[in-house]
């Protein structure tokens, strides 16, 4: 069967394919340069970070060993043969996990309240003036860029060991993170109700109360819940620097090689995080559907 596709004469094909080949060559040249740059950076970074693949290969068995040992009791029996012995500290650990949840809760609540109060000053549409907006934004940025565990380290010195510095550290980080998200929500609202409120004589805060808050509250609550989820994870390692919660027990178990304790505590943490994730996801879905129904 003769081809229905018209065949171009050879010189036309050559003429047309030359620019195509040039384009493709330029593209692959760019890719090659990109790969080379990446490779050079990797080698430099590998040197700086003392990457030693031979050491890793020689010791990788310790990694698998470690996970193997996590599931054996001191007596040498598998943890699954004696679950009661495995979770011997369940009462104590549960109390610490409960504390961890409370730390995350208080940190999220205080941080969210602070973020609510400041977020309006950081928006384009509701800020009082650009200077204040600039400072509000930089302040929020500072609060979320410094890692919370650094705040915890400093607060432990100032407030003493215990959950108080943990709550304050999480609060500051949450304040910075939520402040930014809240401000973005406020920037996306419908401004007509605000104009209406101001036209009928409302003050700035009255306009916010009656025209802005009803629009943004479901979103704010949803972001705060998401943050709570993240903060539960964060609070579980606060104990590493002495700022309360389950982290203290975990780092002791890791440092002193109480293998079965490490696995038991890790499982408890993972289970708690999963439950919290599920519950908050449920509530957030309800909030979002509430938002759509409005």
């Amino acid at each position, binding site marked *: 069967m003769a081809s229905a596709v018209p065949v171009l004469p050879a010189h036309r094909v050559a003429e047309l394919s030359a620019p195509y080949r040039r384009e493709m060559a330029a593209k692959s040249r760019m890719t090659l340069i990109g790969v080379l740059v990446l490779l050079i950076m990797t080698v430099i970074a590998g040197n700086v970070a003392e990457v030693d693949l031979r050491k890793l290969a020689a010791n990788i068995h*310790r990694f698998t060993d470690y996970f193997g040992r996590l599931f054996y009791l001191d007596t040498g029996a598998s943890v699954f043969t004696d679950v009661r012995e495995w979770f011997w500290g369940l009462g104590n650990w549960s109390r610490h996990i409960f504390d961890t949840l409370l730390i995350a809760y208080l940190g999220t609540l205080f941080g969210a309240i602070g973020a609510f109060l400041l977020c309006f000053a950081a928006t384009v549409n509701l800020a009082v003036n650009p200077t204040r907006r600039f400072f509000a934004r930089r302040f929020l940025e500072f609060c979320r860029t410094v890692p919370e565990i650094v705040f915890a380290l400093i607060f432990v010195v100032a407030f003493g060991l215990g*959950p108080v510095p943990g709550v304050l550290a999480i609060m500051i980080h949450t304040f910075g993170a939520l402040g930014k998200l809240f401000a973005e929500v406020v920037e996306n609202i419908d401004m007509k109700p605000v104009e209406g409120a101001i036209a009928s004589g409302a003050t700035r805060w009255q306009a916010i109360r009656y025209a802005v808050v009803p629009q943004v509250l479901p979103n704010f609550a949803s972001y705060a819940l998401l943050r709570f989820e993240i903060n539960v994870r964060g609070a579980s390692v606060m104990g590493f620097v002495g700022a309360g919660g389950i982290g203290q027990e975990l780092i002791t178990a*890791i440092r002193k090689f109480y293998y079965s304790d490490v696995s038991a505590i890790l499982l408890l943490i993972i289970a708690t995080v999963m439950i919290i994730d599920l519950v908050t996801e449920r509530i957030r879905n309800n909030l979002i559907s509430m938002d759509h129904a409005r």
Partner: protein
Amino acid sequence: MKLSRMFPDQSEIRLKHGALVGGSAREKFLPFVVAGLLLAVAIFAMFRLEFSLSRLGAGIIQLGTFLGLMFPPSPGTQFYALLKALAETVAIAFLGTLFAAALAFPLGFMAARNTMANAVVRFMTRRFSDSVRGVDTLIWALIWINVVGLGPFAGVLAIMTSDIGAFSKLYSEAIEAIDRKAGEGVVSSGGSGLHAIRFGIVPQVMPVLISQVLYYFESNTRSATIIGIVGAGGIGLYLAETIRTYDWDKVAFIILMILLTVAIIDFLSSRLRLAIVGNKTVSS
């Protein structure tokens, strides 16, 4: 005109249209119930966690003194050591992100519904990445220190491990969200399943993946600044040490260094993201 004529007696309106003005009982009381519950839990938590005004007051006064001692920030005699530790931090974040991005690539396809037909493999991959993600980077660092010893290499491995979980989840979501027609076209013109992935799916997801990896590079720089606290290299070691020895001017200097580095990396990665992803979205 008298104001009272513009706004007739409100009590009369309330009497007539009470249900409309006041709203339902549920709408009225729900906010108070929610706020009350939040407050009650907060008060309980503050009692349980031993909050006290005297402690907070004393702590804030102490913080004030620390803040005073932080100015002017100064590196002391350790400027070059700090600079080296900072370079180490960036290297840890870079390598951790890069390795995780490469290792999570196949996992992403194994966890996506449209590229992995086998439900068991998909389920296992997803649970694997979930549990890897559930363990904090600091805990991974402690575990890797047992394997390769103290130092930045343990930090690289820790960041890599916790990011593998995050990346494979993000990748699989990106892969599931693509347009399937391109892959079907490749298969219908005689390509194999792998060809469909290479020519039908990878070109579509690559810009999304790269932008996510770049975003994580920035957030990993922040994580890399703290894993030194448990001994896994980088500036965190100096930070923890100077806080413990009350060298507040050095603490302030280190924090400023971290902020500057994060800002620079943020700037560079968003420029790079725009250069790579911006072009791709225009041409495709």
